């Protein structure tokens, strides 16, 4: 593959990462400008700089409100959520030795949905919806990992099966909550929430949630090389010298925190955690030391693009998962088409 050859060396990966970072920054500035209330690039840069360097802001009140109150939180949220889901996806795929695993397969997303839906059913405020989503995600995850412990079989297969069991049980529960919800108000907001959106993020929530994403992401980037080793399978990794139980535990915990934190911010967003690592692997190769940081940047870029598109297409806002689903399935089709001779 052509792209793979270009990026075979570490130096070339660094160049690609640099280019992607610049692209991401340009994307951020562009995203500040576009929308129902247009802002010129000059104005947006001026506001961005005055925030970064703590200078008094010199622009019209409306522009400042739109940029700082609405667009910046959204942009930050989409970049971090995209990066977090992609890193979680790459890490999960590595340790479960399966490139088709996505961050929500341990039941985290279903649990978060149930938590959020329950909060909506109880007519709680948005802060509680996020909190319940987080707790729901973590509880579902704990339920999933407790099954292999009960069966005294700590193999990956049992864990994956446990994820499927918990996931489907929770989607039934979600179905039940939807069935009892008020169809005019609650049902709509539950549905909207399960399809993901960055429309309601506030800077105050982000101040708390973004560190929650940065810490596990940093740990996974530092441990990336060990994910290579863990992806050799449990026994082989052990004979290579890995403390498999501990390392796998850390990686799963960090990835789960990333997934749950993302769901808190923006609801459940499909496909991103699956396709971004796939695409990144085609560009920088399979080694996780390059793959994970690259996925973080690429995922942030992709999510920013998708969210900006949902903002500017159509009259009312479209949930993010509609866009990621469309792009994701096309991408996946392309991926299978490319490998059609190798799939048996």
């Amino acid at each position, binding site marked *: 593959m052509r792209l793979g050859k270009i990026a075979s060396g570490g130096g070339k990966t660094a160049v690609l990462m640099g280019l992607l970072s610049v692209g991401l920054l340009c994307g951020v500035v562009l995203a500040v400008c576009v929308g129902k209330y247009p802002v010129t690039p000059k104005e947006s840069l001026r506001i961005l700089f005055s925030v970064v360097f703590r200078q008094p802001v010199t622009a019209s009140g409306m522009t400042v409100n739109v940029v700082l109150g609405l667009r910046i939180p959204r942009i930050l949220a989409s970049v971090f959520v995209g990066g977090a889901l992609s890193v979680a996806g790459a890490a999960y795929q590595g340790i479960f030795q399966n*490139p088709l695993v996505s961050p929500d397969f341990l039941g985290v997303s279903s649990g978060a949905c149930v938590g959020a839906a329950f909060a909506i059913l109880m007519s709680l405020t948005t802060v509680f919806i996020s909190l319940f989503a987080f707790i729901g995600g973590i509880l579902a995850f704990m339920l999933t990992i407790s099954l292999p412990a009960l069966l005294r079989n700590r193999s990956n297969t049992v864990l994956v099966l446990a994820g499927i069991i918990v996931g489907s049980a929770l989607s039934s529960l979600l179905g039940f909550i939807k069935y009892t919800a008020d169809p005019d108000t609650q049902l709509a907001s539950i549905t909207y929430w399960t399809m993901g959106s960055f429309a309601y993020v506030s800077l105050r929530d982000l101040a708390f949630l973004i560190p929650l994403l940065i810490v596990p992401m940093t740990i996974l980037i530092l441990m990336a090389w060990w994910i290579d080793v863990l*992806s050799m*399978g449990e026994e082989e990794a052990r004979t290579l010298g890995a403390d498999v139980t501990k390392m796998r535990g850390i990686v799963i915990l960090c990835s789960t925190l990333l997934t749950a934190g993302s769901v808190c911010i923006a609801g459940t967003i499909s496909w991103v955690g699956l396709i971004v690592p796939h695409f990144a692997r085609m560009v920088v190769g399979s080694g996780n030391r390059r793959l994970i940081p690259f996925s973080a940047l690429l995922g942030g870029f992709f999510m920013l693009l998708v969210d900006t598109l949902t903002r500017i297409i159509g009259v009312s806002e479209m949930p993010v998962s509609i866009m990621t689903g469309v792009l994701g399935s096309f991408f996946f089709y392309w991926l299978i088409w490319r490998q059609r001779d190798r799939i048996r």
Partner: protein
Amino acid sequence: MIYSVKNIRFSYRPSLPVVLNGISLTLEEGDVLTIMGRNGAGKSTLLGCMLGLLRPQQGEVQLCGEKVSILKPRLIASKVGYVPQNHVPAFGYTVFDYVLMGCASKVGLMSHPGRKEKEDTNKALEMLRISHLTTRKYSELSGGERQQAAIARAIVGKPKAVLFDEPTAHLDVGNQVRVLRIIKSLSENGFAVAITAHDPNHALLLGGKAAIFDREGSVVSGSVEEMVTEEKLRALYGEKLVLRYLEELGRSVCISPNLKTIKTMRLPD
């Protein structure tokens, strides 16, 4: 003494039959040991116990004088390299990245291999004469090349012993000989080597020691000359195998008997 296996007993569950039934073995520097036995006799299980993957219910395995059961994986890995049966990883790692994983016992939890480990990897690739494969994907190699890469990975961390699980499985005859040559060279360079094998000729080629599993899960071991005899092979495999000394090779070879075919190999109408 690198390995000392003392009277180990192992079964996968209390309700299942005993696989290893009081096995004792020793392995010293420069030894090459061929472990033979019928399918399912417990050869791989024995390797599993020696690697600390499985814990014997009785007896103990000592590695350089320390109990394997209490050693951390990192310490075991720094002393033993393992070449598993050929399996293809889910991801297309390059041969370099694949071999580099053999340095894991020297890398910290939140860290990655440094310059030293990368140099060692290049040396190991050179030693196995596969430097030209450095940037190729491991999953795209041929069986013989994969085995060479796996051996490079097993020795890159400079272990004292190297264990092989059926290193010649799925290889053509040429590659089988090449892999056996590498194994013999390793032992001559001071590594303690143990392999499991199905072909008695491999034990005869390698020389050194042989260990044979009997039907009860016990093992008898000794020099290849003592262990690989017509009588023992016939008892082990249940076929009238023939052992002949070949003047031109200066060693014995094992030959299968002529085939007596089954006359009624037809399904009833």
